[in-house]
C-alpha cells in the first residue's frame, strides 16, 4: 500500500464532478461559504478539516440530503439538482455516511439491498427475492475479503469494523460513478482501519470510481488519496496534490495556524523556499 504503487491521475482526465460556489446556512449558522471542488474521473480526493468545518454539509449537498442556498453542481458535464438521496443514488452517487446508515433490526443481506431490492413474482405478488439477495451479498462480501459471521446476522451483532465494511460494500456494490465516504475510519481499530483503507486503495488502483474521502486527520489517508482539499470554517483554504507535497509539509501547514492567510502563506512558502524543511519553529 504505497503511494508509488499507483500512478497519479493524468491531468487530462475529464472532470466528473464540479461543485461551484456552494453556500449553505442553517438559520443563523453559516456552514459553507462559496466552496468549489473538482473531482476527476478515478481520482481519490480527501476532504480534510476540523469539526464543524463543513465537510459533512458539503457531501450531504452532493448526496441530495441537503439543498444548497446558492451554487451549482455539474455532474458528468450537466448541471444537476438532487432533490433527495434517492435521486443522487439513482444517478450513481453513493455515500457512506458517518453513521453508516445501517438498519440494526435487519440482516446483513437486507441492509445490502435496502432501497434496491430484488423481487420475484409469486401468484402475481411482488415479493422480496430473499434467496437471491442473500446469495449475492455472500458472494460479494467474499470477493471483497470481508469476513462476517453470516449474511443472515442482524447488523447490530457485528463489530465496528464489520459494520463499516458492510456499509462500504453496500455502496460500491452498484458500481457507482462517485463514492463518498464520510469518516470511514472513525471508531475503527488499527487492523480494521487498515482493511477499509485497503478496500479504498483497491478501488483507486482500478480507477473506475471517483472517490471523495472525508477525514478528520489526513495523515491516516495520505497514501490512499491523489489530492487533498483542506476545508476551514466553511471555505476551501488549500488544494494540494499528494504527489507534489509530502505528508510532513501538509502537517506543517496545518500546524502553522488555521487562518486562510496563514495557510495560503505557508503553502506559498512550500513552493518558493527550499529551506522551509529546516525551519522548525513556525
Amino acid at each position, binding site marked *: 500500500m504505497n503511494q508509488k504503487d499507483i500512478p497519479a491521475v493524468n491531468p487530462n482526465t475529464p472532470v466528473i464532478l464540479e461543485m461551484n460556489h456552494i453556500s449553505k446556512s442553517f438559520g443563523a449558522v453559516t456552514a459553507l461559504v462559496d466552496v468549489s471542488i473538482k473531482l476527476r474521473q478515478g481520482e481519490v480526493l480527501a476532504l480534510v478539516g476540523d469539526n464543524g468545518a463543513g465537510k459533512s454539509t458539503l457531501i450531504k449537498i452532493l*448526496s441530495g*440530503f441537503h439543498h444548497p442556498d446558492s451554487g451549482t453542481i455539474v455532474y458528468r458535464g450537466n448541471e444537476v439538482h438532487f432533490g*433527495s*438521496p*434517492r435521486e443522487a*443514488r439513482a444517478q450513481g452517487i453513493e*455515500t457512506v*455516511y458517518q*453513521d*453508516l*446508515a*445501517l*438498519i*440494526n*433490526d*435487519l440482516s446483513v443481506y*437486507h441492509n445490502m439491498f*435496502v*432501497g434496491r*431490492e430484488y*423481487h420475484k413474482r409469486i401468484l402475481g*405478488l*411482488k*415479493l*422480496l427475492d*430473499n434467496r437471491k439477495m442473500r446469495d449475492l451479498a455472500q458472494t460479494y*462480501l*467474499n*470477493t*471483497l*475479503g*470481508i*469476513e462476517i*459471521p*453470516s449474511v443472515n*446476522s442482524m447488523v447490530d*451483532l457485528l463489530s465496528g469494523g464489520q459494520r463499516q465494511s458492510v456499509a462500504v460494500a453496500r455502496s460500491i456494490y452498484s458500481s457507482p460513478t462517485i463514492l463518498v465516504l464520510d469518516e470511514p475510519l472513525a471508531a475503527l481499530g488499527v487492523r480494521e482501519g487498515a482493511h477499509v483503507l*485497503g*478496500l479504498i486503495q*483497491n478501488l483507486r488502483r482500478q480507477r473506475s470510481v471517483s472517490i471523495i474521502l472525508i477525514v478528520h486527520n489526513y495523515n491516516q489517508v495520505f497514501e490512499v488519496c491523489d489530492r487533498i482539499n483542506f476545508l476551514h470554517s466553511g471555505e476551501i483554504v488549500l488544494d494540494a496534490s499528494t504527489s507534489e507535497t509530502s505528508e510532513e509539509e501538509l502537517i506543517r501547514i496545518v500546524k502553522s495556524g488555521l487562518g486562510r492567510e496563514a495557510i495560503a502563506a505557508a503553502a506559498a512558502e512550500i513552493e518558493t523556499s527550499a529551506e522551509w524543511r529546516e525551519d522548525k519553529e513556525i
Partner: protein
Amino acid sequence: MAQTTHTSQATRREVGIKVPDTAFERALVILSRYREASIAVVAIVLVIYFQSGNTAFLSSQELSVVLRDTGRFGLIAVAEVMLMITGEIDLSVGSTFSLAPYVMVLMTIGWGVPLAVSAVAGVLLGVLIGVVNGIITVRFRVPSLITTVGTFFLLQGVVVSVYNSQPIVAPVQEPFNEIFGENLYSPTDSIWSWHGLTAFTPFLWTALVVAAMALVLNRTTFGLHTIATGSNIVGAKEIGVRTDRIKVYNFMIAGGFAAAAGVINTTQFASADPLAGGPFLTLQAIAAAVIGGTSLLGGSGTAIGALIGAFVVATLNNGLVMMGAQATVSDIYLGAAIILAMMLNVQVDRMRARRRI
C-alpha cells in the same frame, strides 16, 4: 485483497456468536428468534387453566365469543403493530372504530346506499383519518401520541354529536351481514355448517388480514422499509427510504383496519353505537400488540404476535367472567399480563444481546 474466506472458516477462533448447545439454550434461541413463541406458550397455558376450571371454555359457543373478541382486538392490534414498528402509535383507532360504521349506517338509512357500498365508504373514511393523522405527524412534526389523542377526542366528539349519542339500529342486508360478522350459529347447527362458520367470521377475517400483514412485513419492500424507518430513521432516509410516506401509509392502514373492525362489529350486533370503541378499545388493542412482542421503540414487531396477544386479552376478559369473577376483576389480570409481558420481552432482548443468540 480478494482472498477467499472459506479457508479461514476452519481456523476461526472462538469469538463472536456462541452456538447454543444445551436444550435450554436452544429453547431460549427459539424464544428470542420467534417472539411469537413465548406468547403462544402463555396463550396455551391460559386455555388449559380456564378449561380445567370450567370445562365449557372450549365449547364452540364460548370459543365463538372469545374468538370474536380476538378478531375485534386483533384487527386493530395488527395495524398498531405496523405503526409501532415505524416508531409511531395511533390512539384514535377507538374513535374511528365508532365513527366509520356510524357513517355507514347513516348512508344506508338516509340515502338508500347498499350496505356493502357504504361499508367501503366507512373504511375509506378510516383511511382518510389515517392520512390526516399521518400528515399532521410527519409534516407538522407533532408526535403521533399527541396527534392521535387530539383526533381521538375530535372524532369521538363528532360521532356522539351526530345523533345525540344514540345507537342506531343497523339495516341487515344479506349476504353482506352473514359474510361480515352476523352470527347465525345456534346450538342445533353443526359447527361445520355455514351457520357454524359464521360464529367465527370476525376471527377468520382478522386471521386472513394478519397472514397478509405478516407476508407484507417479512416479504415485501414496503415491510422492509417499515422496519428500516422505525429502526434507524436517519439512516433509512440516507439510503433513500421515503420514511415520511412509509409512516403515512401505515397510519392509513391503521385507520382503515380500525374502520373495518368497527364495520364488522356493527354488522355483528346490527347496531351502530357511538360509544362502541372509545379509549378502552384503543388500549386493549395496544395491549394485545405489546403482549404479542412488539416493541414500543420501533424497529421490531410481529403480526402473528398481535393476533396471539389479542387472543390472550380476549381469553382473560372472557375466561375470568366465565369462572364467576366480576368483569372488572379481569382488568387486574390484564394489567398484570401487560406488565409481565413487557418484562419478559425486555429480558429476552437483553439475553439476546448478552448471549448473542
